[in-house]
């Protein structure tokens, strides 16, 4: 709860203090504030004892606080790793932090109203951020598309919430669990409950860009400024999956009923994400599809809910840690390569291998996304696949095939980086933040137990 307040306050602070100042002035203060929020979340101290919030609206368990810390950490990382814009005003930083406020709310929600609120607070700044490169027509297109499709999905989500309320007479997730177990006991589900659940799921699946609700992602990811893309690809995934997991846990008594549907969606996401990733010529778009594929893998976590021997939340957490760190790194590399070469396709990586520290860091990031051992990506995938295998071997089989395919397109970046060393003279740029990203990836990869609650 305290973290939520800090992030919110920081957002307002940055927004107002940053007026008419270059963004770089507010960059490190924002990072520090977000880190502070993350640390507060991690430690669990309650700074706002005077504030009483009903448990049925929002509450943070120790697991939730870890998710909050991850959100704040990744938010800080995204801000730190990308160059600040030179133009006046820190509104983009403020918007990012506002969006983060929504994400933090989403993680702690106990109530459909709070969930809706969180999603909206998170999404609306994102629409603006997608279009924040005002001179760029693609950025504008991305914003419009994201907004239209997002509005549509929110409508579906709201409709689902309404149906659920109609079916159960409550908006509190915990109470819904009682109702669900009651229905499960008799084996009949009223149509309104089913319809509500499906529509709610569609709304959330849209946010995490699972197939077939993923269409916005490639267009929006590609058109938006890269920093916004990185933010979307990480923060929204973390918050979205946390919410999805919570809803699934609430309806856990009905797990037999939805398991196949989840598996099918996961398989679809994995196939479409990876196959489309294979044919992209733009690395940014490739990463968009890769994020769809990763959403597919993470959907497998939902299969673990209700299985006492697995801790679905900590497995998801580890995967998200691995995914979001590596994703941020990958987007940062794409941004750096684009700025350096002025190209949008894979040739942007040409000659990168002559810059030794850059290539080492980049390789680590992409290896982690592909899930090669000793990187965080492998640890995340290993725990996820190994646990899900006993529940749904077919889906895990597809996930493994998908991982195989994904290696093809992740390694494409290396091919360009190593193939042509004459073309460009890379300016040696050292970023300790990116170095930190590599170290973190290897650390999580070598000692995943430290990061699994």
């Amino acid at each position, binding site marked *: 709860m305290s973290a939520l307040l800090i992030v919110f306050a920081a957002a307002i602070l940055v927004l107002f203090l940053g007026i008419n100042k270059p963004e770089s002035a507010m960059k490190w203060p924002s990072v520090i504030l977000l880190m502070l929020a993350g640390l507060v979340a991690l430690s669990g101290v309650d700074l706002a004892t005077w504030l009483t919030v009903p448990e049925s609206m929002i509450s943070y368990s120790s697991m939730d606080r870890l998710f909050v810390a991850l959100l704040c950490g990744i938010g800080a990382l995204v801000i730190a790793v990308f160059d600040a814009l030179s133009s006046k005003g820190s509104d983009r930083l403020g918007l990012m932090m506002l969006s983060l406020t929504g994400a933090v709310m989403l993680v702690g929600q106990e109530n459909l109203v709070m969930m809706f609120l969180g999603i909206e607070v998170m999404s609306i700044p994102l629409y603006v951020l997608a279009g924040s490169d005002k001179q760029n027509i693609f950025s504008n297109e991305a914003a419009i*598309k994201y907004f*239209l*499709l997002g509005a*549509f*999905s929110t409508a*579906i989500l709201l409709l689902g919430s309404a149906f659920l309320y109609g079916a159960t007479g409550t908006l509190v997730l915990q109470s819904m669990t009682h109702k669900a177990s009651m229905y499960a006991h008799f084996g009949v589900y009223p*149509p309104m409950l*089913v*319809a509500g*659940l*499906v*529509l709610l799921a*569609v709304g959330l699946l*849209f946010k995490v860009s699972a197939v*077939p*609700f993923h*269409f*916005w992602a*490639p*267009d929006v990811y590609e058109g938006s400024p890269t920093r916004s893309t990185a933010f979307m690809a990480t923060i929204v995934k973390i918050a979205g999956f946390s919410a999805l997991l919570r809803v699934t846990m609430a309806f856990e008594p009905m797990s037999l*009923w939805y398991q196949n*549907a989840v598996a099918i969606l996961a398989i679809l996401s994995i196939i*479409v994400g990876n*196959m*489309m*990733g*294979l*044919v992209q010529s733009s690395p940014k778009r490739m990463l968009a599809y890769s994020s769809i594929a990763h959403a597919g893998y993470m959907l497998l976590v939902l299969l673990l809910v209700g299985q006492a021997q697995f801790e679905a939340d900590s497995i998801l957490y580890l995967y998200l840690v691995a995914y979001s760190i590596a994703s941020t790194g990958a987007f940062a590399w794409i941004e750096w390569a684009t700025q350096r070469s002025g190209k949008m396709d894979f040739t942007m990586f040409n000659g990168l291998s002559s810059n030794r520290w850059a290539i080492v860091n980049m390789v680590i990031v992409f290896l982690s996304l592909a899930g090669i051992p000793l990187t965080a990506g492998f640890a995340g995938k290993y725990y996820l696949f190994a646990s899900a295998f006993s529940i749904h071997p077919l889906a895990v089989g597809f996930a493994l095939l998908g991982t195989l*395919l994904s290696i*093809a397109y992740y390694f494409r970046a290396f091919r360009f980086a190593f193939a042509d060393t004459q073309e460009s003279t890379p300016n040696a740029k050292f970023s300790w933040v990116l170095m930190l990203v590599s170290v973190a990836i290897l650390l999580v990869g070598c000692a995943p137990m430290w990061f699994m609650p």
Partner: protein
Amino acid sequence: MNLYILLALPLLGFTINGLFGKQLPKFVVGALASSLVFIPFVLALTLWSEVKEAAIVSQPFTFLQVGDLNIEFKLMLDRLSLIMTLIITGIGTLIHLYSMAYMADDAGYYKFFSYLNLFIFNMLILVLGANFMMLFFGWEGVGLCSYLLIGFWYHNPDFGYAARKAFVMNRIGDLGLLLGLFMIIQHFGSLDYQVVFSEIAKVSHPQWVYTSIAVLLFVGAMGKSAQIPLYTWLPDAMAGPTPVSALIHAATMVTAGVYLVVRSEVLYTLAPMARDLILYVGLATSLLAAFIGLKQNDIKKVLAYSTVSQLGLMFIALGCGAYSAAMFHLATHAFFKALLFLGSGSVIHGMHHEQDIRKMGGLRKAMPLTYVTFLIGTLAISGFPFLSGFFSKDEILLHTFHHSPWVYGLSVFSAGLTGIYMFRMFFLTFHGTYRNDHYAFEKVHESPILMTLPLMVLAALSLSGGLLNLPHYLTHSHSEALAHWLEPLFVFGDAAVHVEPSTEWALLGVAVSVFVIAFVWMRQKYVVQGRVAENDDQMSGSAKLLAHKFYVDELYDSLFAKPLQALGTWTYRVLDRKGFVAFTDLMGKVTHWKGQTLARIQSGNIELYLIIMVLAAALMLGIELFA
């Protein structure tokens, strides 16, 4: 004292020289390497009396644990491994010293010594290990070092091929050894010598188990000890620097197979069929190699074939069940063959890398020390009375005589051939006239003291090596010294030999006369008549056959290498390129094509996106509501 120190010192030498040798002065590198082999030798000597009481066993620790099978890292110094250790470290020290001079101008000086130390380390593991796993560890380790040292001058591609050949041939043998170990695990549930051998001694398993394990272990020995059909690598291994040939490919590593059989004495005594196999393989190898040795003109090649032949003789002894006789010959062979190799190295050094004996001659005047020591070595190996080789060979011949007359006959024949090719080489090298036009006789020089000193020590050993195991007709004791020393280790012991004293003297007479014939004939041919070995193009018939080593290399080439290569080419061209690669390519293309088809949906058309989303949601609703 802790046995691990024996291992740790050479390993330390390997590490120091391997990591920092380049920065250290050459003398320091050589002296360090030599002393780290010499100290274990002294330590092993001090343990003599202790080992005499009982075998020393080190504190074991778990090396591998798989299921019920617990393999320990455990060392054991008993009477057998003590002898091996003394030979390895003793001769090793001499050869290290020798190498300091021999390799003085080599750019890879430090590398050479670090490899040598690594070899000593692995060889000690091989003989000190208290279970078959440790033996295997050392077995592979010495194989690696052998590979590295044969190909030491890897800039010459031929030497590289020779190294590869040695490695591959050894791998074939290793496969047999490994299978043998697997069978031991399967039937006895352990690899520990004590456990396995006491289990075997109970004779609780069917005969075929013993026979097949014994044969499989022998296949391993065939590879390492260069027996038919896996012997062809050893002559090629002469590509390595001469000290390496002396240490690894004559005195120590190649005798690992003999050690393995002696160590598994219980097993082989219970598997007479396997022992017969050993006997015949040894006999065939001994004869074949001796024949080939007759017409080789490379000084080191002659010695290499002689080594193969002598190893064959050791296996003949093993086949007859004369374990201590084999060990005796192993020890004396280590002395005189190391001496001969080092002597040939001295010649090569003095002649500036000339190895062809047709281009030598008359060297006795230029290199007196080398000449004398080489003469002693030659006399010892050809069985000059009362030198080391005489006694050790004689004991083997005695056993073969007891086994069957025709085995005895062939063995004597082989021993006679030894004298012939050795004296042929000796006279061609040191007597007659100097025959090299490219290198003036005045430039031929005696080697430095660092090289001749080991020669003299080894010559002394070759002279007196017979003392190790003097036959009972000289000592009038009940049994020979070495046999007596090894006796407590054996469960069944050496095959008993009972012959009349008169027969024994007759056999001695035969041996001496064979030596005399060889000596006189060769002297007549090469010294008195002054003939020189014919050039390659003058050879005909049997000489050509021998000079070309019975075309065994060519036979293996067309029997195994060519068909395998053809198979490889076929699998590459057809199975791989047209099969697997085409298949994976196809998979890639299909995926790519499907991806492009899918990509058409992603047209940027927002209405289409919405329609698909709504349809998907509707589909899900429909399925969940009505199905």
